[in-house]
């Protein structure tokens, strides 16, 4: 418990809260880099994922890219770009974008794919144009899964941005690496506590967003189903007809 006291002493020290390299500045840096990376990666991965999910074409390559990139060790990518590009913000930003693409891509195509094909056929039968089907049917219905992808990408970015302090003077990870160098466990642990809090707060925000973006219509049918459902499990006689919807 002594170690935690050190960390709290470090966190409470007013000297760490002002001037260059202070806690507020590092938090701001961390958030700024993460937001920048998220915007760039989303601009690349979300439209691509939507296209794959909507047309169903290029699904295999998308699955392979999002699965294969996951095996990439983040530290390896960071250090490699570190020597290629040199000290500065460009290397971590590019590396982080590459690492953020798989979850975003997977979330986008899974979200669009999750929409019942019959709903889309119905929308088309009502005379919706292709873009209307995408914007008014697929996007709202797939939104919780798309936001889920953005959520895991954001967590990944925040975690990797911490690690990126190894190659650049940026973010809350600086405290961890500075503490490692001087063997100041209080600073290391204090920095870690800040990173953990930041990640948990942002994860919480996304969890809320994921609930809010469920379309009102979907929410309404869900409660209706809950109420009208039988209290006892019904005897299963044969399987329900899922024709045309089988994997």
């Amino acid at each position: 418990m002594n170690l935690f006291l050190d960390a709290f002493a470090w966190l409470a020290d007013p000297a760490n809260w002002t001037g260059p390299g202070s806690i507020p500045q590092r938090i701001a840096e961390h958030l700024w880099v993460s937001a920048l990376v998220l915007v760039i990666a989303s601009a690349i991965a979300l439209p691509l994922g939507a296209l794959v999910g909507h047309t169903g074409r290029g699904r295999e390559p998308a699955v392979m890219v999002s699965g294969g990139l996951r095996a990439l060790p983040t530290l390896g990518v960071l250090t490699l770009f570190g020597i290629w590009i040199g000290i500065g913000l460009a290397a971590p930003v590019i590396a982080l974008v590459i690492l953020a693409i798989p979850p975003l891509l997977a979330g986008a195509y899974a979200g669009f794919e999750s929409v019942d094909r019959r709903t889309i056929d119905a929308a088309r039968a009502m005379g919706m144009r292709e873009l209307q089907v995408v914007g008014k049917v697929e996007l709202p219905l797939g939104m919780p899964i798309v936001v889920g992808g953005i959520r895991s990408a954001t967590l990944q970015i925040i975690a990797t941005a911490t690690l990126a302090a190894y190659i650049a003077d940026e973010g809350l990870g600086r405290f961890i690496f500075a503490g490692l160098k001087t063997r100041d466990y209080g600073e290391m642990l204090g920095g870690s506590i800040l990173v953990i809090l930041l990640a948990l707060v942002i994860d919480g925000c996304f969890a809320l967003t994921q609930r809010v973006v469920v379309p009102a219509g979907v929410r309404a049918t869900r409660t209706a189903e809950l109420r009208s459902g039988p209290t006892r499990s019904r005897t299963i006689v044969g399987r329900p007809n899922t024709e045309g919807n089988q994997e």
Partner: protein
Amino acid sequence: MNWLWSNLDLVGELMLVHLALSVPAIILSFVVSVPIGWLAHRYRWSRGVLLSICGLLYAIPSLALFIALPAFTGLSLRSPVNLVIALTLYGVAVIVRTSADAFDSVERDIRQSATAVGYSAAGRFWGVELPLAGPVLLSGLRVVIVSTVSLATVGAVIGVPSLGSLFTDGFQRGIQIEIITGIVATIVLALGLDALSVLLGRLLMPWTRRASSNGRVLTARRVREETA
């Protein structure tokens, strides 16, 4: 390329060290998460709580967890055991949801039939539910294998040697080929263990070799929707 030829021994040695870190973590997280997943499946009320805890755990950045864990366990920061514990926690966080889904994927009729032909609760678990949940459990295990092998490299920055040492050393000395070797070796190790787990799955679950064509085993969610 010269670096690679003169350091093949080092790479081989680090691969073994890396295996010694990640394999125990993978096995431990599988062994720990199966009962937790079963609990989440069996008792509905525990599901939300257990899955939320895992979600929170998963949200914690790895480097911060590696640093914070010794404050709880009293281990040294550079101790490999510390790293194995942290990797196990992440593995559990990843696999519990899948293992809850895996047990959900066993159809109710099958469970009831097992009880009807005289299986005890424990016998039903070992003889019916666990084998039938196997394919989905395996899919969760495969995700954990890849993520654990990749995550173990992060330990290098706090001084626990692994294939990640090739990244830190290569970065500090500016040797590009060393970092690329590290990345390739990590991916090879992950894919190798993945292939091994698939092979083991085929040996232990011979029926999936035929069943995989109709894809029934992977539709845990659909089964739940249909029986709800």
